[in-house]
């Protein structure tokens, strides 16, 4: 059963999401990866305003390929999340409620997610052409000079995701692998 969720994420929605849930996400999300995260956190450290309000929002770790004429975006699968770990707690403290990526997170990120009640989703790594089909609009928000790494606001419809780490800190990479191991013993 795929649960349908929308952005911005409400507290009620966040508390209902459990590691292992398959969800379909609809709404606006923001893209940011390595270089953009570095700039965002530098702004926070200097006490300056961010180029978009992160409160209740979701950041998608993606650097899409260029869009062909008439298309909102090119291929747009997730990049590996751990590279954003050093910057993530500062954004969670600012009210960020969700992240979409792939792969493991640091203990610091998970602790900050528990404290701030946030969720980490995985998109299917490598299924970038398919994911692009869910993106209906794309608008530049900041850092055009970063090219593929610029911050964009995307409108996504029924983007298929899996809850990897929920607000309680449960981790589906660990749970899923353990369940599989138990099933073959």
């Amino acid at each position: 059963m795929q649960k349908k969720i929308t952005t911005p994420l409400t507290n009620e929605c966040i508390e209902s999401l459990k590691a292992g849930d398959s969800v379909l996400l609809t709404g606006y999300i923001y893209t940011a990866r390595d270089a953009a995260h570095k700039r965002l956190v530098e702004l926070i450290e200097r006490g300056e305003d961010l180029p978009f309000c992160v409160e209740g929002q979701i950041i998608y770790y993606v650097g899409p390929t260029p869009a062909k004429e008439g298309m909102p975006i090119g291929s747009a699968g997730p990049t590996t999340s751990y590279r954003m770990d050093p910057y993530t707690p500062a954004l969670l403290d600012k009210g960020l409620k969700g992240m979409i990526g792939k792969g493991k997170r640091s203990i610091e990120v998970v602790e900050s997610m528990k404290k701030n009640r946030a969720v980490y989703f995985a998109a299917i790594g490598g299924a970038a052409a398919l994911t692009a089909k869910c993106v209906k609009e794309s608008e530049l928000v900041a850092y055009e000079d970063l090219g593929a790494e610029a911050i964009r606001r995307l409108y996504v419809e029924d983007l298929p995701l899996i809850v990897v780490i929920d607000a309680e800190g449960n981790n589906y990479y660990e749970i899923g692998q353990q369940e599989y191991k138990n099933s073959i013993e």
Partner: protein
Amino acid sequence: MREVHISQITETIKKLCMDANYYLGEDIKNKFYEFKEKETSKLGKEILDILINNSEIAEKEQMPMCQDTGMAVVFMEIGQDVHIVGGNLEDAINEGVRQGYIEGYLRKSVVKDPLDRVNTKDNTPAIIHYNIVPGDKIKITVAPKGFGSENMSKLKMLKPADGVEGVKKFVLETVKEAGPNPCPPIVVGIGIGGTFEKAAFLAKKALLRSIDEENKNPYYAKLEKEILEEINRLGIGPQGFGGLTTCLGVNIEVYATHIAGLPVAVNINCHATRHKEAII
């Protein structure tokens, strides 16, 4: 001497950059179907279906399978009886990459300096490996390398006493530590022997071989099979959510080494394992 004009090299590389990013290899497609039958995780099976579907969309719409269209790794096998004319060969190769990545709507993922990190905006320079071989042909292989998997790769200088068990242990540790990060199912290239840099090169080169094709030496063919089975007992599964299908294929390349050493390099690829070749 047979003459080859650099414009022909540029054109060939341009096309290979695009094709490698749009078309999933037949060997990988076949393995997907094979593993789908054996996979016992329901979510794992669904993910394999999604990845097959993704490759069909990419092919039909001529769009990249993955948004990380990689750093272009170019292998040039140049026949010693070929005379390259019309300009500088390295420039011609980079021009092919530039045109392929711009005209093919591929992502520009290269920064000029590893610490300064300013994007070159045309995905150049390529990583180029030259090899001079007998004959009057040029074989060009383009293998765009994504860094989700490249970042999970490792090299270790083992002791001769570590032997084959040491090699296995290191490969399994590397794959286990990578876990969900390189987008499993993965393909693993292993280089054993040579020197520090030769082992890394061998591991990369191993990834160019079709995963249907085993090492010509029966000892290493058996080792490839054993390591594949052991990796798939780790339970990482598609995308790391648990399952059988962690790895689709293991390729090993070996070379002579020093009496004091046993270098081993493990180069991880995601399922796309992009490489396309052409002969001029």
